[in-house]
């Protein structure tokens, strides 16, 4: 088969879930392109996606910084009060011999989302300025694969479940970090949802001038 077969156009792509060829052209905001055979969502178009991803990512980084700086929760039982920050969660776990759990929690809940946010801010800054640097190629690939391992929203549910369990044992007071982390969860999810893999890579291709 030649480099570009008779039925391939600039807009031909393949479905990653069922391998069927399909044409996806420019979409309008609010439109989605789905595979005709398996229904896999191939592309989603948002109004000004990079501005949206950029602003929500920056906001998410700000509230994450707040979440790190203040007490997360404090509990009182039998006249003793114990207050804890996010970093202490990890340190206490490590101290109680659960190093592996401490590592997994910090990886899925803090490290992966933080790396994704950093990549998103850098990438959308470049794309909004209509620029692309070849060294951004690898982080952009990782960004889309890392998402499966970000458990920000799962942790948020875990916090709420623990509150219910704790309420039975002691008096619980929510710290500023608790609210900041919930805000971070929402901002992070909205920021990433604006990153459509097909549009991102088509824009990168356009900006880097040639295929390689």
């Amino acid at each position, binding site marked *: 088969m030649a480099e570009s077969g008779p039925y*391939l156009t600039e807009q031909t792509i393949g479905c990653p879930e069922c391998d069927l060829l399909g044409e996806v052209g420019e979409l309008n905001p609010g439109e989605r392109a789905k595979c005709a055979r398996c229904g896999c969502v191939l592309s989603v178009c948002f109004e000004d996606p990079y501005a949206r991803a950029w602003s929500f990512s920056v906001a998410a980084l700000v509230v994450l910084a707040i979440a790190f700086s203040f007490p997360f929760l404090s509990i009182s039982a039998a006249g003793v009060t114990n207050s804890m920050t996010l970093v202490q969660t990890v340190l206490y*776990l490590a101290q109680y*011999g659960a190093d592996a759990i401490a590592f997994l929690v910090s990886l899925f809940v803090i490290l992966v989302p933080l790396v994704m946010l950093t990549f998103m801010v850098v990438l959308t800054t470049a794309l909004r300025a209509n620029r692309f640097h070849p060294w951004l190629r690898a982080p952009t690939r990782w960004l889309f694969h890392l998402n499966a391992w970000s458990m920000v929203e799962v942790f948020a549910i875990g916090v709420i479940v623990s509150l219910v369990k704790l309420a039975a044992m002691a008096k619980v007071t929510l710290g500023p970090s608790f609210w900041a982390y919930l805000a971070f969860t929402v901002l992070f999810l909205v920021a990433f949802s604006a990153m459509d893999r097909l549009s991102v890579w088509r824009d990168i291709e356009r900006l880097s001038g040639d295929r390689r």
Partner: protein
Amino acid sequence: MTITAREAGYDVCHTCLALSPTGTGHCIRCGSHLHDRIPDSLQRTVALLIASVVLYLPANLLPIMTTDQFGRSVDSTIIGGVVLLWNMGSYPVALVILIASVLVPIGKILSVATLCWTVGRHQTISSRQRTTLYRITEFIGKWSMVDVFVVAILVALIQIAGIIVIRPGGAALAFAGVVILTMLAAESFDPRLIWDDEAADGGTPGTEEQATAQAGQRETA
């Protein structure tokens, strides 16, 4: 145009959906590593699945956490935790834990096993239904981590020396292992294998989707 990339002599990139001629090795657009199908997809998936079933035993038999209160130590298992919450009257939370820690992992193991079993066999479940099963499995994967996070938070928070201390148990790590292994199993399963059968069965599957098969349907969300 109802032809697959494989039939046309191309590999689909998993990262950016671009088509590169088969055998190129790396995507011509984004540089991702390419393969026609995930190599040894079924063997890898089944191996990871067996490992997760093995770890599922200690995850349920060992205590997930130990509570030391007034000099007394109480172990609790995952199921024990659900029962305790239910008896306390926290029905919604008991249900969350039951679904996330018991139903989701078992459901995932069964659905990945079903997906592997049905590849290359005569089908009673349509490819479209199996693809839906695959997507649900991928989507719910990380949600079983809830219980591990709950233990992490409780351990970190409940440390009032001499009065009450919570320590993580062996099941916490085993259970985290189950979740990670089932996520890896779902990731190493290549959903295109589901559809490869259709092509092998003689070309066009006789479903109504095919009528609108001018690929790349548009829809307004």
